[in-house]
């Protein structure tokens, strides 16, 4: 499982998001230091990363709160807590659900062939 946090340095919220994410990992018995933290430094980088704002947390490439049609860019991201409040960080409950969904997604065995094996998810 690949857990990533992408951030822009101009937004002050990513340390809290990282702390929440590590706590959720810890609760799940996973290594809290396994988070890959990456800075997005330019608008071009935001476009390449499909980065709609800071912080963005992905588990196996899937955003923990799908951004819909939000434009990419270097900005703070607006999240909604489950109680409706606006927040600069995702609801920890959404992090737990995303982690659970990722852990439940089965990994299919690679088909036997002479080619190198690849892992795919259903």
């Amino acid at each position, binding site marked *: 499982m690949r857990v990533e946090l992408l951030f822009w340095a101009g937004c*002050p919220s990513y340390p809290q998001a990282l702390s929440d994410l590590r706590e959720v990992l810890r609760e799940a018995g996973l290594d809290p230091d396994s988070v890959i933290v990456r800075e997005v430094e330019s608008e071009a980088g935001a476009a390449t990363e499909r980065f709609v704002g800071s912080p963005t947390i992905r588990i196996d490439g899937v955003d923990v709160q799908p951004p819909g049609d939000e434009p990419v860019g270097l900005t*703070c*991201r*607006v999240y909604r807590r489950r109680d409706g409040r*606006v927040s*600069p960080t995702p609801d920890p409950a959404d992090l737990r659900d995303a982690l659970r969904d990722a852990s439940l997604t089965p990994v299919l065995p690679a088909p036997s062939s002479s080619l190198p094996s690849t892992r795919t998810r259903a």
Partner: protein
Amino acid sequence: MTAIGERAPTFALPDTSGAYHEPGGAPATVVVFTCNHCPYALAWHERIAERYPRDSAEAMKVRVERGELDGVPYLRDESQEVARDYDAKTTPDIFVLDADGILRYRGAPDGDHDDPSQQAAWLRAALDAVLEGRAPDPPETPPVGCSIKWKE
């Protein structure tokens, strides 16, 4: 940068209908540097607007028409000159002026964007102090929010 106790910069900026507004002419004036899409500004917005009422001008108009500003003038600082004059750092960044345009408080609305029960306590206390002719205590708190992205 204007220090507490000094006269704040004057300005004239248009609202979403094109009418210009200047600070002053009131017992106290609150200048809030804000943003349509900053989560800190949005989280604090109701607490700020309640007390006394994706950065395009069109998006600003939408918010006004939705009644989100409750009669508070929502001005556009297109060139960012006013923000630079005030040395605004974040959204939100709040400046409370007295009747003479003297800066009396600068900083955050309260101690936690994530706790609605704080009710913009620092802003309320500063306004109450200014209206009663007292110096706000504290006169300054660190502004918290999205850093302002400056045009080149």
